[in-house]
C-alpha cells in the first residue's frame, strides 16, 4: 500500500514538468493550431543561456533567473516574428514542419556551443533533498515544480478567461480572418502567445536543470507534455495539466506494477489510444471543424 501511495506521489511529481510543457504547447495550439515541436529546444536555449550567465559571468541567481524568463519571452516572440511570420505558405502543416526544423537548429546550436558533458545548474535547492512524511517522500524541487505548474496554469487560465486578450486569442483560433475584420491585431496576438509559451517552457527547463543539463534534456518532458496536451484535448489549459498528472501517475504505476521495461512507451500508447477513441481529448470543448 505504501508503495502504491509512493507511486502516486512519484507520478504527480513527474507530472509537474510535463504539465508545464503541456501548457506551453497548448498555448500555441490554442491560437494557431500549430503543434510547436521546437518547444523543448526553445526552453533548452533559455536554460543554457542562464547557465552561461550564472557559471561563466558569475551573475547572482536572483538576477539570472528573472533575466532568463525575460530572455525566453523575447526568444519566443523572435521565433514568431522572424521565422514563422516570414513563411510564404501559412498552412498548418508547413508551420509544423518549420518548428521541426527550428528544433534541430536550436539543438545543434546548444550542442555546438556548450558541448555534451552533462552539467548541473547551480540552484539554491539541491534536487535530492526531500520532505519525508511517514515513509512517503517527495523532493523539495518537485514540490516547487508542482506549485509553479499549478500557479502558471491558474494565472494563464484566468488571464485568458477573463481578459479581453483571452477573448481575442479565442477569436484568432476560430477564424483569423474574421478576427482581423473585427479589429483584432492577429499578428500581435500570435506574437504574445509565442512569448508566453516560450516563458512557460523555460520555467519547466529551469526546474529540470538542477538534476541534469544536457542538449537532449527536454526531449522526454516535451514528448510527455505533448501526450498530456493530447489527452487534455490540445486546447484546454486545465486539460493539459490534468493530462500531465494522469500521464505521470499512469506511467509510474505501470512501471511499478506491470513492466518497468515498457514504462517509457506508456505516454505514446496514451497518444495513440486517445486519438483512436476520443480524438478531442478528455476535456473536449473542441469545435467541430466544418470542411
Amino acid at each position, binding site marked *: 500500500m505504501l508503495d502504491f501511495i509512493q507511486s502516486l506521489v*512519484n507520478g504527480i511529481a*513527474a507530472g509537474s514538468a510535463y504539465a508545464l510543457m503541456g501548457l506551453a504547447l497548448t498555448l500555441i495550439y490554442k491560437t494557431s493550431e500549430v503543434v510547436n515541436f521546437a518547444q523543448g529546444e526553445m526552453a533548452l536555449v533559455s536554460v543554457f543561456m542562464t547557465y552561461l550567465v550564472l557559471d561563466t559571468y558569475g551573475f547572482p541567481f536572483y538576477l539570472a533567473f528573472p533575466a532568463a524568463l525575460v530572455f525566453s519571452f523575447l526568444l519566443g516572440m523572435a521565433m514568431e516574428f522572424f521565422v514563422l511570420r516570414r513563411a510564404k505558405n501559412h498552412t498548418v502543416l508547413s508551420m509544423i514542419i518549420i518548428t521541426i526544423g527550428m528544433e534541430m537548429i536550436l539543438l545543434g546550436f546548444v*550542442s555546438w556551443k556548450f*558541448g555534451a558533458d*552533462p552539467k548541473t545548474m547551480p540552484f539554491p535547492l539541491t534536487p*535530492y533533498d526531500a520532505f519525508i512524511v511517514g515513509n512517503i517522500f517527495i523532493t523539495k524541487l518537485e514540490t516547487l515544480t508542482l506549485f509553479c505548474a499549478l500557479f502558471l496554469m491558474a494565472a494563464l487560465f484566468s488571464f485568458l478567461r477573463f481578459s479581453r486578450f483571452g477573448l481575442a486569442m479565442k477569436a484568432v483560433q476560430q477564424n483569423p480572418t474574421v478576427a482581423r475584420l473585427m479589429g483584432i491585431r492577429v499578428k500581435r496576438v500570435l506574437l504574445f502567445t509565442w512569448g508566453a509559451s516560450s516563458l512557460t517552457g523555460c520555467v519547466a527547463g529551469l526546474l529540470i536543470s538542477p538534476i541534469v543539463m*544536457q542538449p537532449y534534456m527536454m526531449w522526454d*518532458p516535451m514528448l510527455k507534455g505533448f501526450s498530456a496536451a493530447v489527452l487534455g484535448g490540445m486546447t484546454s489549459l486545465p486539460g493539459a495539466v490534468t493530462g500531465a498528472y494522469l500521464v505521470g501517475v499512469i506511467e509510474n504505476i505501470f512501471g*511499478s506494477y506491470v513492466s518497468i521495461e515498457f514504462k517509457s512507451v506508456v505516454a505514446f500508447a496514451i497518444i495513440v489510444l486517445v486519438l483512436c477513441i476520443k480524438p478531442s481529448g478528455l476535456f473536449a470543448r473542441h469545435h467541430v471543424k466544418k470542411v
Partner: protein
Amino acid sequence: MKTKALALVLALAALMLFAPVLGAEEGLTDTEIHIGQWGPQTGPAAPWGAVARGTGVYFDMINAKGGINGRKIVYHMFDDAYNPAKTKAGVKELQESVGIFAWVGGVGTAPGLAVEDYLMERKVPWVGPAAGSMHWITPPQKYLFAVYPLYFIEAKALVRYAVRHMQKKKVAIIYQNDDYGKNGVEGAKEQLKVFGMDLVAEVPVEITDSDLKPHVMQLRRSEADCVLLWVSPKHAVMTVGTAKAMQFAPQFMSTSTCSDYTLMYKISNGLWEGVICTNFGELPDSGSPLMLEYKEAFKKFAAKDERWGTFFLAGFGFAEPLVAGLMSCGKDLTREKLVAQMEKLKNFQGIMGKVTYKPFDVNDPNCRQGQHEVFLTQCGKDGAVIPISGWMEIR
C-alpha cells in the same frame, strides 16, 4: 558485334571498378595512412564522444614525431550520435569514397555491431572498439582486435570485491536496456553463482528515461546492500540521488564508463563520493613518463575547451596497440601484414593494462581480446581518485 562491344565495355568498367583495390591497399599511399573512427558528438551518449577526439590528438602527436615509417596518419572522424543507422551510413561512405586502411576505437556496442559484419567482410582491420562487449570476440574475427576489457569482466571484478572484501549479501543491478547493460548483468550473475548467490533485483532503464523513481523503488524493495550501476553517467547520478532522497543507502558500484570522477562528482553535487568503479587505464593525473608525454600533446593539439578526462585519454589508449602494430610493419605495409604483426603483440604496455593477442583461432575468443586487467578505485572528496586494488586479471 554489338554483344562483343558490350562485353568489352563491361569488362573495362569492371576493371576500372576493381583497379584501385588490385593496385594497392585501400586507404594507403606512399605518404599517408587513412584511419577512421566514429563517436557521438551529439545526442544522449555525447559525453563518451571525447574518445574519438582523444585519438585525434594522439595521431597529431604521432605525426609530429615523424609519423609511421615515413607515412602520416590522416584521421577521419565523424559524429554518429550513437545511432547505429548513422554509424553504418558514415562508415560505408568513408570506406567507399575516401578508402580507409583501418578503423580504430568507435564508441558504443550498438553502433559497432551495425558495422562489424561490413568491415569484416571487406577485411578491414578494426582495433580497439570503445565498448567492452562480448560480441567483438564471440566468435573472434580475424580483423577485429578488442582492447577494452569486457563489461562482463568489470562486473565480475566488482562483485568479487563486494562479496569478498565488503561482505555484501544482496547485490542488485540497474542496467541500460541494451547490450552494454546486459553484459554487466551476465558478468555479475556468473560471479555471484560462484559464491552461491544471485542478483536480488535486475532493473532495466531506457536511455531516454528522465524519471528513475520507480526504478530506484524497485531496488529499495529488494533491500540490496550493493547496487551495480550499468547505465549512462546521467542515469548513474540520478539513481544515486534518488536513492539518497529515499533514504536508501547501499554501496554503489559502477563501470569504467562512469569512472570520470571529476565529472561525476561535479554533476552529482558530491553524491558520487564513496562510489566504487572499475578502471582500465592509468589515471589521468598519474605521473608516468608516457602519461606526461600525452599530457604535453594534449596541451599542444587539443581544442581550447577540451578536458583532460578519462574518456579523452581512453582515445589514446585504444589506438596505442594499432600504432604499435603499424610501426612494426615497416615500410611495406599491407592489411595482412598488420594483422600478423598485431598477433605478435605480447604484454604490450601503454597507458592501459597489458595487451596480448594470439594467432587467430576461431575457438579461442581470447586470441582477439587484448586486455584482461582492471583495477578498482573509489571516488573521494572533490572527485579525488582513491585506488583500492591493484590490477586484477580476470577471465
